[in-house]
């Protein structure tokens, strides 16, 4: 008999835990005042309100300050290599669709070394959430400009000012066809919690950019406090072009749910349906071998 290595069947029941009970006990390594503390707090509140069992949640990250995130949450975690958080998360979700998979990281991880994976996660519409803590700087390596840094930013690796134009992450993911797009701010915890909840609940790939300033290398708190504002009520989040217009606004940085497309089929669901279609009862390795028998 050919031995199979079937996974155990996992069942989950929703829990009633406080945000604190989702803390792993590992103290965060971030600088005092880092925006990521706010993101973590809103995240813990969001998963508590969603009553997610700790063993069902898997948090995947790459490399960077914000990628240390999984260690601070009492959940399953995967601290991967620089830039590869999305494909790792894709592998987890495809192998284990029963899990709630959240990918976290920073702007360097997402838009520089890992940029090649972002459009593919979007086109697959895999059912995972991606939270990008954007501080417009490389913090862990001590202050080099990032792909979202503004032109002219003077840092040690750009002593005469950056000469490259920044990426507009929301414009990018909206154009690539993301089915859920939002932007939050670490200093707006209540709104951020709601956005994280909605992103996790979205069936499909949800992209949440969170402005999360770096107090040590690029303190943008005051700047963003002055130019962020909620999306106006007349914006219809089912309207991708309207979402793009607000994302491309150069005077204001809008916060909120930019775009949401419900009912789009996910990669994991589409693959499972295909599998069900082509699966043959009692089909196994011997049948495959027999195809090559002379």
């Amino acid at each position, binding site marked *: *008999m*050919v*031995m*199979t*290595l079937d*996974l*155990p069947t*996992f069942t*989950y029941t929703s829990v009633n835990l406080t945000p604190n009970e989702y803390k*792993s006990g*590992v103290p965060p*390594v971030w600088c005092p005042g880092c925006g990521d503390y706010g993101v973590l707090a809103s995240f813990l509140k969001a998963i508590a309100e969603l009553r997610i*069992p*700790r*063993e*069902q949640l*898997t948090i*995947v990250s790459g490399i960077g300050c914000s990628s*240390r995130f*999984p*260690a601070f949450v*009492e*959940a*399953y*975690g*995967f*601290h*991967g*290599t620089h*830039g*590869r958080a999305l*494909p*790792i*998360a*894709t*592998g*987890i*979700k*495809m*192998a*284990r669709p*029963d*899990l709630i998979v959240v990918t976290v990281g920073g702007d360097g991880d997402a838009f520089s070394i890992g940029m*090649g*994976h972002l459009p*593919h996660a979007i086109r697959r519409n895999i059912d995972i959430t991606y939270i990008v803590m954007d501080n417009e700087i490389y913090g862990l390596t001590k202050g080099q400009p990032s792909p979202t840094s503004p032109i002219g930013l003077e840092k040690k690796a750009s002593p005469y000012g950056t000469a490259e134009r920044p990426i507009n992450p929301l414009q990018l993911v909206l154009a690539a066809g993301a089915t859920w797009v939002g932007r939050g701010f670490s200093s707006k915890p209540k709104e951020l919690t709601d956005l994280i909840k909605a992103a996790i609940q979205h069936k499909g790939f949800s992209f949440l950019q969170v402005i999360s300033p770096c107090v040590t290398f690029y303190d943008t708190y005051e700047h963003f406090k002055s130019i962020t504002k909620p999306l106006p009520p007349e914006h219809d989040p089912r309207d991708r072009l309207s979402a793009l217009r607000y994302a491309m606004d150069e005077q204001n940085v809008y916060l909120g749910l930019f775009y949401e497309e419900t009912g789009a089929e996910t990669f994991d669901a589409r*693959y499972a349906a*295909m*599998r069900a279609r*082509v*699966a*043959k009862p009692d*089909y*196994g*390795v011997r049948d*495959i*071998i027999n195809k*090559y*028998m*002379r």
Partner: protein
Amino acid sequence: MHDQSLTLRVGGDSAAGGIVTTGEVFARIAAYAGLEVYTTRTIPAEIKGGHVMFQARIAPTEVWSQGDELDMLVAFDQESIDRYYALIRPGGILVYNSNDGQPPAADYVTFALPLNDLAKTINFQRGRNIITIGALVKLFGLPPDVAITVIEKQLGRRKDLLEQNLLAFKTGYDYVEQHITPTALYRLTPRPGAEKEERLVLSGNQALAIGAIAAGCRFFAGYPITPASDIMEFLAAELPRVGGTMVQAEDEMAALAMALGASYGGVRAMTATSGPGLALMLELIGHAAMTELPVVVVDVQRAGPSTGMPTKVSQGDLRMSVFGTNDDAPHIVLAPVSVEDNFYLIIHAFNIAEKYQVPVIFLSDQDMSVRVQTVPAFDPTRIPLEPRLLWDPNSGDKFQRYKDTPTGISPMSLPGMPGGQYVAEGLEHNAEGEPNYDLYWRTTNMEKRARKVSQAVHEVERLTLYERFGNAEAAIGIIGWGSTIGPVREAVQLAEAEGIPVAVLYPKMLYPLSRALLEDFIAKRQAIIVPELNYVGQFARMIQAEFGREVIALRQFGGIPFKTRDVYEEIKRVHASLKPTQKTLARKQTSTQRRARR
């Protein structure tokens, strides 16, 4: 060895179509008739068109190499005649398309087939390949009913074309019957009852992909690359049928990252690539070693460096596989020796990866990956599957993912198990998997990870992860790896027939190397030849470094396999260079053997 086997080469322009089909179908007809076949082919560098060659060695008993010279050339055009006529052995046969080629006079028998004219008579220009097959079947006296069965099986998908193909077959067959009086031709006679033995006709990549499914692999992610892509294509078709998943990733890093994600989820996972792709995966292989995640990474080696020669063979990725990661990342490197071995060794690869929670690099090569040959039917139950050690949530113990143990292997939890939460951590960490750079945890975990791999070496003896043959007392030894074993086997037979004994060892675990296996073998030899398909003699240098023993690197880096003659002549050269006392020793042993045989 032409008295026992037939080496046939078919050449032509791939734009004309069917060159490889001709060879493949003919080889299958021979296989179905009960003969053993061993094929090899070139793939044109051009995307459409370009010269291609298909070679089949056919014999009543198993053959181990593609054959050094041609017994027969089938040339579809003048270019094929020009390229290959000199390779035909004296007294061999040239079958040529007399509508497109004129052979120079040489010591061979020629048969003219007016292929274009014959195709015109049946109004089927693309039928030249099947006309040729008909002619070959008649020339070699193979059973036409078997040929028709194979044609129906291989080309029967389009019913309208099948009728034309069968007509083409008859046209070629009849032409030979009416125009050529076969004299002193090959008669390929199978062993009695051989056609009833269970034989598979398939390539190394197909064997590997089936082996992966037998090994319980249920997740594959890959990125297209020659010559590994057909593993991905095979699994794209078969994995969903057995409940698995195949994802075509956006690049090689994503491919391995996805496989690691799936493995983290508890599913046996694999990726397959070639040299340039492995180069991109190395960082993640280090990550798998650090996080102790099982995964199998197949590298179907091709000639490099850089893009190199994607359609040509090489064994040049050994050093990258062994030494490629940043810092010491304990992992395993395995190398199969044959098409059949691709099936069985990949099962071992999964077992070792899962049991020791390590990445396993599996070094196949272009030669055995594309080569279609007959192999004994696979037994998917021969190797029992060994699952990974899982944490028991009911054990009452607080879970520690990287708990230090005597073997270094720690029980693993799977997402979904309450209480088993941990982070697969690429930073140095403590037993819980929390980032930690303390000297204690650093040294403890470096040693723990290394301990697993030093345990895994014992699998070499337990699972016989090597091939050993020849004369165990011989003064001359050959230590090799991978697909070079075929020509070595034949060369050793030739040498032994001349009274030169040779001992041969092919380890299949190349990293770490088993001292128990190699030390004794090395100590007994006066001279050791290490044949391999790369420029510097990568394995030779590894053996020298590891065992402090000078070896003779026999190298072929032209993108082609060894010829039997290459190895045979090196054995003779080394034999002649041995000191007289050593030679006497060797001769004495041979004569003792001979006496024993009498």
